[in-house]
């Protein structure tokens, strides 16, 4: 059983009837993911290429037994979709939407504390367990099944590193795109913990970037708890302080959140940090070889 999403995962898509939602949900279904329902208020009874549409997530869950929510609705309605999914006690909520006001997200995150649902995102590419289930927008073709777990704050950079792994024949157990927003659901810590317990994962790649202290806290966790090897990459060594580099959360404030500080913290915890995506893949390959021979 892979972490977060696997063969049995049944997905209800908020915003299935929108352009983005429809496109990606159908791609996910073509990959083999069980896309069982869509939700668009006022469109109950319609369907999108055979996927039934409901007015509410509660209705969709009652009819189809969905356990995972995938959200594509625009930023001003996205937190409502997250709350609705949480109230239906879905196991996993994956929110792709970019541009949610951070205050809305902070209130939502506060409400989710102590609830059974895990949130991935927002502003994230989603989660894929190659060959089993793809929930989100990660292109399935670049992944191959295998035993390396991957967790990342970025989208296309994740694809780049997955691609480099795949080219070397190194497959992935699960890739988690946690997203680039300052307030988000599942982070490095939670993902590392899941991979640490996952019998199908031998090594974890974490892909961080400037801003915040998620990577530093992950380094502490790795030093104390992690029993599997971790290889890291940090983007933004050359990013100037005070400039937001695309992602809302990617900003060096004063001396805090620099790539160097993050790499130092990780290296102090025994985690090798590749300086280019290619070097990351090479590090993974040599670590796996060491583990196999020991």
């Amino acid at each position, binding site marked *: 059983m892979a972490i977060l999403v696997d063969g049995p995962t049944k997905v209800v898509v908020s915003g299935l009837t929108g352009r983005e939602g429809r496109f990606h949900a159908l791609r996910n279904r073509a990959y083999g993911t069980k896309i069982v329902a869509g939700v668009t208020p006022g469109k109950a009874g319609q369907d999108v290429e055979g996927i039934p549409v409901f007015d509410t997530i509660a209705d969709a869950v009652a009819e189809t037994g969905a356990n995972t929510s995938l959200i594509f609705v625009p930023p001003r309605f996205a937190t409502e979709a997250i709350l609705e999914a949480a109230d239906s006690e879905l196991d996993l909520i994956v929110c792709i939407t970019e541009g949610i*006001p951070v*205050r809305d997200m902070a209130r939502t*995150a506060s409400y989710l504390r102590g609830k059974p649902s895990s949130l991935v995102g927002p502003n994230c590419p989603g989660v894929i367990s190659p060959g089993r289930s793809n929930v989100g927008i990660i292109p399935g073709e670049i992944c191959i099944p295998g035993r390396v777990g991957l967790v990342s704050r*970025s989208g296309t950079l994740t694809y780049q590193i997955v691609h480099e792994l795949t080219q070397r024949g190194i497959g992935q157990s699960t890739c988690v795109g946690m997203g680039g927003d300052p307030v988000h659901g599942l982070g490095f810590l939670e993902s590392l913990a899941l991979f640490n317990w996952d019998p199908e994962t031998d090594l974890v790649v974490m892909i961080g970037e400037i801003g915040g202290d998620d990577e530093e806290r992950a380094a502490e966790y790795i030093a104390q708890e992690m029993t599997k090897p971790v290889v890291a990459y940090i*983007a933004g060594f050359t990013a100037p302080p005070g400039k937001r580099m695309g992602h809302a959360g*990617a900003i060096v404030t004063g001396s805090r959140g620099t790539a160097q500080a993050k790499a130092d913290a990780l290296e102090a915890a025994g985690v090798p940090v590749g300086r280019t*995506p290619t070097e990351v893949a090479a590090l993974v390959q040599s670590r796996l070889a060491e583990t196999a021979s020991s």
Partner: protein
Amino acid sequence: MDLYEYQGKELFKRHGIPVPRFIIAETPESARAATEILGGRSVVKVQVQVGGRGKGGGVVLADTPDDAEEAAERMLRDGFQGHRVNRVLVEERLSIAREFYAAILLDRSTGTDLAMVASEGGIDIEELARTRPEALRRLHIDPEIGIHPYHLRALTGALPSEARDLVENILAGLYDVLVKEDATLVEVNPLVLLTDGRVFALDAKVTVDDNALWRQPEIEMLRTVFPINRLEFLAREAGLQYVKLDGQVGIIGNGAGLVMSTLDVVQQAGAGAANFLDVGGGASADAIATSLEVILSDPNVRSVLVNIFGGITRCDLVAAGLLEALERVKPTVQIVVRLDGTNAEEGRRILEAAAHPRIVVAGTMLEAAQRAAELATGVIA
């Protein structure tokens, strides 16, 4: 989006936070007139979005209208630490007894608001937290619950008793700014207790969430007065994420993380990136043409690196878009293109078939960065 001090103070006034009387001046003469209105003495403060104004000559105590005029003239003429200065704030002089510090910010590591009050002002708060933690009170506020009187009482615990009630009102006001204006940071450094017992916000630092500007139209309008870089303005109008940097390799990529990584890899290859530019998903001919226009109008650019990993973005469309863009923009430097992911082979075939004299196709991200770096530094040497 960071606000200027005077904009922050306007917001403070609206939320009942006392600030000194101030007048904005755009000429030395109006700084003089403002000082006369304020009673013949004033403080003249340069309006720029950098710290360290006090130490760097950006804050001048003017004892006469002449002084104020002279200070304003210098600031408006010379700028401040390389930043152009369009406005100065001319403020009443106050008799200060004590300085404090107050701030509320969204703490991303907890996803809650962090309120801080210190019994010292004009200080580096991180430094104070290390050296004199007893002078600082910190409290996390759950955004679902909001700030309550017991929070306020606890936060002012290190302040002199005569100031506490007034500071508590100000903290409630700051929280109001945070929530109602969609700010992610409100900071007052210093907050001052006057000899007559009143408490004023002497400075105002406010950062507003860019993602919330659609519901803060008044703040969005403030943007228009920001004297930003011309290239950044062009890019923003086209919906591109662009940040000007100092190197010679112009960068176009899709996705913030990949672009950041591209900047780093270019540096590893021995050159510097001239910019950060994320064309976003889709990467249409229009978006690429505008990106090229923006990048090529930077005179430092010696080569361009286009690094696309197609997920949703289709590389064949990117290649076609690039060729179309080159019909409109006639570059004088080489453009190194690396395409991978969705329809990459088709994209590379299109570029190779076109054999455009300005396009160099590279197989991998690393190879592309090395090639672009060579082209950029080769021209200089």
